[in-house]
């Protein structure tokens, strides 16, 4: 009983601390969604401005935009902990490390994924996606963005700060990101063409559950390895 209470206190303390750190640097919080808006603005300018074409490429543009802005925003959350010695303190916390990593993923979801979840459907609507497709896009973001946060966290815990880690991270994550991209963009495309999106959404939900159950353990194992080396 006492152990459970102290675990809950440690997890809450991590959440409070990380959110306070993010709150102290609001400009960093704005970066992912500003970048995302820039991507979504530049694409129609570069492509032919026909509404039919824009609606056709919208799912791919939006999801690639989410991928490219979300992952670089998750990485600094881990990098800071490794550089200032907080990682060692997490390793020495009496609370189970995977649980702390899950809390860290929650922080990433709140700080990075949530703004994108709110903005991306608006971007989809501006791209001329029909309403059913915008709804499906919102649902896919709800499942896909946290999945990306979890994967990004585990990947960053493994390679951030290593020599050439900046190159390793995208290479390492690529095979894990591809299914998310395929099913998430596929669901939106299906909905836009009037086909059922449900199968792809179910696959996305399965990927989310898989990431939720495995990524915290992977991140914890990665952090232990870093502790062993440092």
């Amino acid at each position, binding site marked *: 009983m006492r152990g459970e209470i102290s675990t809950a206190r440690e997890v809450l303390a991590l959440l409070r601390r990380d959110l306070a750190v993010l709150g*102290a640097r609001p400009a960093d919080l704005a970066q992912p969604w500003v970048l995302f808006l820039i991507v979504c603005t530049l694409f129609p300018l570069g492509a032919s401005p026909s509404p039919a074409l824009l609606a056709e490429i919208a799912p791919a543009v939006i999801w690639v935009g989410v991928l490219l802005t979300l992952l670089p925003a998750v990485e600094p959350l881990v990098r800071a902990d490794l550089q*200032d*010695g907080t990682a060692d303190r997490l390793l020495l916390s009496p609370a*189970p490390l995977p649980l702390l990593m899950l809390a860290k993923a929650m922080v990433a979801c709140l700080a990075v994924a949530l703004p994108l979840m709110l903005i991306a459907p608006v971007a989809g609507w501006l791209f001329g996606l029909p309403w059913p497709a915008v709804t499906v896009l919102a649902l896919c973001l709800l499942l896909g963005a946290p999945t990306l946060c979890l994967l990004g966290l585990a990947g960053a815990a493994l390679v951030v700060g290593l020599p050439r880690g900046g190159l390793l991270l995208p290479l390492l994550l690529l095979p894990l990101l591809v299914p998310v991209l395929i099913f998430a963009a596929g669901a939106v495309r299906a909905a836009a063409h009037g086909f059922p999106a449900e199968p792809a959404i179910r696959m996305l939900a399965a990927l989310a559950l898989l990431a939720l159950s495995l990524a915290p353990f992977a991140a914890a194992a990665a952090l232990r390895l870093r502790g062993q080396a440092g």
Partner: protein
Amino acid sequence: MRAPHERLEAEGLTVERGDRQLLHGLALMVEPGQAIELTGPNGCGKTTLLRVLAGLCVADTGSVRWCGSPIAEVRPEWHAALAWLGHLDGLKAELTAFDNLALEAGVSAAAALHALGRVGLAAAVEVEAGRLSAGQRRRLALARVLLSARRIWLLDEPFTALDVDGRALVRRLMTEHVTAGGMLVYSNHHDEGIGAARRLALPPPIEFGADPGGTGGRST
């Protein structure tokens, strides 16, 4: 399960780092009211030994036991008894000195202010840790060790970056902790440690570079 008598024991510890062997079967024991000061030249493995004791690193041979059980088996209990001050301060540069302490699990605002006063940071309560000097950050990290009220302190070079007053302060805090029945292991390459501590001089590392069996080829 818990032994009636709290103690930290290590035996037969050996760590290999690249071409070097550190510690060479080192053994130590700390009981309540005891302190060990680790000394030795740079690179002899003081930090590595502290990380092995804490459970951050795993030694290649040997075991670390807390109350008679290997620390891997009693990890939550061991880490709930342990306060760590590493080579890095573990502070968040964006947060104020006060928030760095008060956002820890189970720390009240009054306790945080009291601890800041004890380490001489009463005037810097609202200053971000990133704007403190290296010595002030060290004091802040020590305040967190104090606040944790843990029974065993593992401190890696607690005197680093501190001025004369700061070193005297650390000596006083460590002595109080040990006198009150706490346990302490710290590394030190400054002249003066604390009187209550047993000195443990770590042997120099053994280089494998000359070993013809080693195919590493990393001799420089």
